[in-house]
């Protein structure tokens, strides 16, 4: 099957400033692609380029197999949901939803039928005669989605649609969007700066930084095998522990030496067959450091560490200790007896470790 969206060597400049550099992305029908990155990384610009709201400087872009590089937004067969919802303030909810059809000259009967269908799907029937100003944030969000859904486009574009909602509503709407995606089997490109949103929604994630793609992959790939230090640090909360260390080959495995604040060195063994340079950054997610006895496996190694801080978070308790000059977070079970200022035996799951080059930050294993 042809990709629903194919971006090829896309460049975007504002004057002399390069906003997007050599973007290559391709998604299949039914994919939920999330563009994620810190603010200013170019993700919204990329979405605007896909929509045709911004001219691209170089490269090509096709939607549903048709070249759309220079086609205006209205002819791209897309629909878009905006961060501020962008509801037309002087039109009722119904008019907001049908405006696109009206502009395109769709007959009234079809408009009414489609409106009814979408209103039912989103449960906004009682709101149809209201003005946007009379709606709550969540309701506006639904109307904005209704306006997109009614068009039944090839591709849906979402520009940070949840960032104006409060925390509770955001989680609710996130679930709802996921459900919609599954029921409609729609193809979606979704921009967010929230990595949790990215992880929960996406079938495919693109991590952007400074207009350059850092990594493309499934949520699991991105989470477990981050391509570089930036992705490792950006995806996951609390963030991956990134600890400077020294690697020495020892037989088939590798010895990893980490400096401690006490002056001695913590040596951990990675039994995997790796070829690493001497200076590395060791990356280990908090959940891969457990209290001794609670984690078993071939790569698990235990070591006594001084606990600096204990942060109970309900279901888990986070314990912070200093290793290699960094604050290292471990995610322990809630009933842990760890106490600040005391030693605690921690279990490091070395089979999960990612290694990154110290200078370039690229992944080594």
């Amino acid at each position, binding site marked *: 099957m042809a990709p629903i969206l194919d971006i090829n060597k896309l460049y975007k400049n504002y004057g002399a400033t390069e906003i997007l550099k050599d973007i290559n992305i391709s998604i299949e029908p039914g994919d939920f692609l999330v563009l994620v990155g810190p603010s200013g990384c170019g993700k919204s610009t990329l979405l605007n380029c896909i929509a045709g709201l911004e001219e691209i400087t170089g490269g090509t872009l096709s939607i549903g197999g048709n070249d759309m590089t220079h086609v205006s*937004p209205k002819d791209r067969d897309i629909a878009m949901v905006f961060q*501020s919802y*962008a509801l*037309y303030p*002087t039109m009722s909810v119904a008019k907001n939803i049908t405006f696109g059809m009206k502009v395109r000259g769709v007959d009234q009967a079809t408009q009414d039928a489609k409106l009814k269908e979408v209103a039912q799907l989103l449960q906004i029937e009682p709101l149809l005669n209201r003005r946007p100003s009379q709606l709550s944030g969540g309701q506006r969000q639904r109307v904005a989605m209704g306006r997109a859904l009614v068009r039944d486009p090839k591709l849906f574009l979402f520009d940070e649609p949840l960032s104006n909602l409060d925390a509770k509503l955001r989680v609710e709407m996130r679930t709802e969007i996921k459900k919609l995606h599954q029921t409609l089997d729609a193809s979606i490109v979704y921009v967010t700066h929230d990595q949790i949103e990215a992880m929960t929604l996406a079938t495919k994630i693109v991590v952007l930084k400074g207009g350059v793609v850092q990594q493309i992959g499934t949520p699991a790939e991105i989470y477990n095998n981050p391509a570089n230090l930036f992705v490792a640090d950006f995806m996951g909360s609390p963030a991956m522990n990134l600890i400077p260390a020294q690697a020495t080959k020892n037989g088939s495995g590798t010895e990893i030496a980490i400096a401690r604040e006490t002056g001695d060195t913590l040596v951990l063994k990675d039994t995997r067959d790796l070829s690493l340079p001497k200076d590395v950054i060791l990356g280990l997610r908090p959940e891969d450091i457990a209290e001794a006895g609670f984690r078993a496996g071939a790569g698990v190694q235990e070591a006594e560490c001084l606990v600096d801080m204990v942060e109970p978070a309900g279901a888990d308790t986070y314990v912070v200790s200093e290793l290699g000059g960094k604050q290292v977070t471990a995610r322990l079970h809630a009933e842990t007896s760890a106490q600040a200022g005391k030693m605690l035996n921690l279990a490091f799951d070395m089979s999960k470790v990612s290694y990154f080059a110290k200078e370039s930050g690229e992944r080594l294993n």
Partner: protein
Amino acid sequence: MTDLSMPHTETRTQSATGKIALRWLLYVLLGLFALYYLMPLFVMLTTSLKSLEEIRTGSLISLPREVSFDAWKTAWSGACTGIQCEGLRPYFWNSVLIAVPAVAISTLLGALNGYVVAQWRFKGANIIFSLMLFGCFIPFQVVLLPMARLLGMMGIAGTIPGLIFVHVIYGLGFTTLFFRNYYVTIPAELTKAARVDGAGFLRIFWSIFLPLSLPIIVVTVIWQFTQIWNDFLFGVSFSQAGTQPVTVALNNIVNSTTGVKEYNVDMAAAIIAGLPTLLVYVVAGKYFIRGLTAGSVKG
């Protein structure tokens, strides 16, 4: 409030009396200033209702002993502006004929320009806007001479269309500014959403921006109307006998040297000339003030 020992209560009463006195002083001051601002209007009104005889003998601020509307009648239809003695009436209508189309055209153009500058930014749009904005501030003396020649070459010198043209041209800067400042507060996403919905430049303007624009249209129309109605410089420079606006005619009546000086007629004429803008101010003062402040405080 919980501590009510005697000495405290005493000082509190003292300061309370002081406060009341201050309050009174405040209101007296405000009242005096109100009198200051109202006095000329009052004098104009009473003078216009007095007979010439009473004006000569009575005091400036006394009420008319006998109310007479003769001066108003003369001012409207009989006072002399130089050689002609038709009163203000024809000139009043000249002003209407100038102001109505000039306001309508400059407001419409301003709305379109503001919409482009605020929502359809293209390279150089900001420079164009700056150049237009600057045009608001030039002293018009600097364009009087070439404009007089141009109007002559276009064959509309001394005509009402000529004055409409001049007012539209030099009103554009302000009308564009008003609409631009209003439209930049409307999120750009609205335009984007409409474009994705399939609407084009004019459709978006017509269906989305114009329905939103009522407040700023009112502000702009009031501003332009006041400016054009009250204009004297363009009126006196680019009109001829018969096409003069009301301000020019008023000045001619007041300064016409033929016959006896009829102060009551002068005052009635002044009130008539000022009435439309005064009315607009009383009816829509809120918008008038918004225009004034928007015209002076950019951004």
